[in-house]
Each structure stands twice: as C-alpha cells, then as structure tokens.
C-alpha cells in the first residue's frame, strides 16, 4: 500500500471528543460526520485537508470513547494514515477493522522530523516514509502482519473466522 499526501501535525492526547464531539454521535452518515472532523481542536482542519492526507501526532492518539464515528469522520474528511507516538487501543482497532485508516506507531525522531504541510509518500509494507518537501527518507513501522492484512482486505468483515485464525497464527 502506498499513500501520498500532506501532513497535519498535532500534539499528545488527541481524544475522541475533540476528533468528533459527542453531540454528533447521533449522526451515522460518514459524510456528515466528516464536516465536523477535529472540530474540537482545529476548526480549520476540514477546510485544509485533502484526500490521502496524513495525520502526525504524539502520544495516545484517539484516547477516550469507542465511537467508530471518529474513524469515519477522519477518513471521509480525507485522512488515510495516522502516524502517532502511540494510539489508544479502541481507536487503533477501529482504524484497522474498518480498513479505512492505516495506523502506524512512530518514534520521537520521526515525530520531530515532520511538520504540518510536509508532502510525504508512505510505503506501508516496506516501512518507508519519503518526505518529498525535505528530501528526507525515514524508516517507520511497518505495522504487524495482521494489521496490514486486515486493512489490505478492506476490513475485518471481508475475512471469515477460519482465515482470521490463519492470519493470526502466522
């Protein structure tokens, strides 16, 4: 999988309440949710973001609620990958199981090397990130096999339990 897009950089503990505030949880149309993505922390995000863009963040990205709305909102706004120092676990699972967003853990050095507006190209399986705007090449990830496989297949629902067991045991 290869992703090319612009970086939107944030700090630590970007929680699900700022990704998509609770009042919108009664909404289940992803396109409507996308209009409010990151509203709690960056109201201009939805104006700037383009298809295929990448979020770079600090620790505990997605901490808080189990709302899958958070993944829908970000994906339908345009985000295809999130590079964070760490993820909160439910959000991380939701990215993978929906097949919508590729979550990759990064170290401090990679976090420091990236800024909002950088144009990056991500080679997921190879664990390679090219920062086109700076002529840099960084090693990141790659995510574990099961993560790559579920996303590559378009989400958990496209894999039956027997196959899932096979993937998990590899």
């Amino acid at each position, binding site marked *: 999988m290869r992703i090319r897009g612009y970086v939107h950089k944030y700090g630590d*503990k970007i*929680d699900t*309440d*700022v990704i998509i*505030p*609770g*009042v919108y*949880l*009664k*909404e*289940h149309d992803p396109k409507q949710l996308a209009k409010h993505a990151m509203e*709690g*922390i960056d109201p201009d995000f939805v104006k700037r973001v383009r298809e295929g863009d990448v979020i770079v963040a600090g*620790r*505990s990205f997605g*901490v*808080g*609620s*189990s*709302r*899958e*709305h958070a*993944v829908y909102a970000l994906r339908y706004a345009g985000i295809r990958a999130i590079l964070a120092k*760490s*993820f*909160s*676990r*439910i959000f991380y*699972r*939701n990215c993978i*199981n*929906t097949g919508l967003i590729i979550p990759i853990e990064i170290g401090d050095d990679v976090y420091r090397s990236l800024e909002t507006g950088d144009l990056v190209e991500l080679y997921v399986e190879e664990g390679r990130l090219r920062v086109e705007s700076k002529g840099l090449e960084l090693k990141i990830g790659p995510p*574990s096999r*099961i993560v790559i496989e579920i996303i590559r297949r378009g*989400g*958990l*629902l496209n894999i*039956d*339990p027997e196959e*899932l*067991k096979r993937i*998990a*045991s590899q």
Partner: protein
Amino acid sequence: MTLAEKILASKSGRRSVSPGEIVVASVDRIMIHDVSGVGVFKVIESYRARKGIDSLKLVMASKTWVAEDHFVPPSDRKSASNIRFLESMASKYGIERYYRYGAGENYGISHTLALEEGLVRPGDLYIGGDSHTNTAGVFGALAVGMGHTDVAYALMHGVTWLRVPETIKIHLEGSFKPSVMAKDLILRILGDIGSGGADYRVMEFRGPALKGMNIDERATLTNMTTEASAKSGIMEPDDLVLSYLEEKTGSRPRPIASDPDAWYVDEHQYRLEEIEPMVAKPSSPDNVSPVSEVEGVEVDRVYVGSCIGAKLTDLRAVARILKGRRVKVRTEILPASHRIYRQALKEGLIDIFTESGALIGPPTCGACFGGHMGVVADGETVVSTTNRNYPGRMGSKEARVYLASPLTAAASAVTGRITDPGELM
C-alpha cells in the same frame, strides 16, 4: 498466567498464552447501546446488502443485550429515530434482552445494568460497544470496549481477535478515611500512571483492601481504567461477587484467579489511608491534584451522574452531605438506572436531594458525554462525578470541568466552591 491471560487462553482453546501474541477468541457476551448499536446494525446491514445476503443470522443474538442510555429520553428527532431503528433491528435479528427506557423493571446506563442484572460472569470474554465496558471486570470477566465493526463481527461470528495484553498489578492495602472514596483512589492512580499509562494493557486490582469495598466502589476502579487507556480492568471474584451473582442469576459462578507465579509487567502499591480527596482538573482525567490544592475555586454547577458517579453508593454519599443542607449552585442528580432511582426513593435519598434544591433527572448518559440534559456553557466551572473532562466533553470547549468523588461534588454544591467533604462531615 494472570486472570486476563487465563481467560484468553481458555477462549482461544489454548493451554497457555503470552503477552504480545495475537489470538482469535470466542466471545461470551455482547452489549450494544443506542449509539454503538445503531452503528453496529448499520455495519451489518450494509455488509448484508453488499454481499447480497437475504437473511443473515447473528450467532450471538441470544448472548447479546441492548441498553438505551445515551440519547434517552431522545434529545431531538434524529436520536428518537435512532431508538426506533435500534428497536426494529433488535427485533429483526432476534435480540430479546432489550432494556427500553420508560418501559420495564429496570433500564438505564448499560454498564450499570451489566452489574445490577448480573449480565456478565467471572471468566467471560465480554465485549461491549462502549469504552467503559471495562467496568464489568469487577466480576472477574475480561471486559473489553470495542467499535462498531468489531462488535458486528463478534455478533455474526462469535469470535474476535485480540493481542494478549500485559497485566499491571495494582496492590491495595488498608481502608479509606471517611471523606475518601474509590473515585479519589482511581484519580490518584491516573495521576501517577498517566492517560496512556496502561496502553494495550490490563490493570488488575488486588490486595486485602478490596474486601472493604462493595461492588459499586470496586466498579469505580475498573470503570476508569479506560482513562488510563487500559484494555480492561479486572479483579478476582471473591465471595461477595460470587454470592451476588448467585442471588441475581440463580447459579453460583465458578471462581477464577491469577496464578501465584503470574508475571506482571509493572506493579503499583497504595495504602488507602494515605489517599486524600482528589480532583482531575481541566482538561484531562490524569491532570489530578488533591482537593486541598484547588479548594475555594468558585463553581457554577455540580453534576452527579453517569456509570461511574451515580450508583446507589454514590447517591448515598451525596445524601450524607446534602442532608439538612441546601445547595448553593445548580446541582443535577441523575441516578444511573431505574432500579437505583427507585431504591433511592425508598431510602429517602430523593427527598434529601429535592429538599436541598437539586434537580433530579432520569437515568441517562446525558451531559457526561455532552449529549443533552445539562450540557455546559462557555466559561462555566463544573464539578462532576463523571469520568472524563476532555475539552468539550460535557458541552463547551470553554467550560472548566473538575472530576471528583460524589462526596466532594456534594460538598462543593453546598458551598459553591471546591470543598473537601471532610469539612462537612
């Protein structure tokens, strides 16, 4: 193996498992509510349409329950139609255990129902479409919160995939001072380990101090493991839990315990006498300090509600402070379930609350997640018995929310500023 490892080994048909392994495990129980349930059924229906399947059977239908708790009573037409959709889907897919608000012996917040109705058993792998599913770990189940797709998959196939988590041991000794509750302890723990302190891990509470806590108080601890990003919180079921579940369900569950030589990735010890009344300051549950450091901060509103802060024990604590006193600031009290509401009526607690001037609301997640019923305004300072104070969580991003114990919340309601409850006891 630890309790969590034993459950995952058993559910994945293995003799043993180790942290870091990925397992596919069978699921025992599932919970969905009027936010996640709607999402889950949208996922299932679109899958069915995509695959051209006419009738899809949910293998877990009889092991699943539904609670209406977030937008109830409905806050607008959209949330009202979500409830109708949820009802129709539950009926279409044969999910009979359905807690309707306003129509039944008990209804209210899902995590409270799990405890009150004995819906989860020791040794269960229990998944819920809500992050505070962790609460049910108080019964010795591995109780894990998940998103719509995860829950939909488990409903259809009866299995889920999980990374076997490392376990952190939290060893507790001694007993609380009268002005201190389990909420103060879990806030202190959150301050110590931080909001990512239990990422991908399970927090297992152990030690002689647990004997001195009832199920409500223990559930306060497991509930807020979520704010440390834990996969779950868990406790070995003791006689209190086993007898409670026997009374609720008619059969005594088999006990389950961590092995004496189980490996823990980390260990923290607390003496309960040393815990002070605590608050989490704006705007993160791990931004904690003793009440003594923020005493006197002027308060506009007090909110007593949610799965963590409006259990019967919490309402009794609030009543202890409010008895014979009047609240100085707007105070909203929303019992976590219908059963708790009725018990509070019988015990005279509701009389004490209404005499104090406080407002009594219905069982609902309400303003805890900023949905409705007490949403907070720009510039307001709120003391709340709930579990999150992220920016905008209860409404305005410009509000300042302090998380506190029911005792501290009640004391602050009486004085109109953040107050150590010990001063009124």
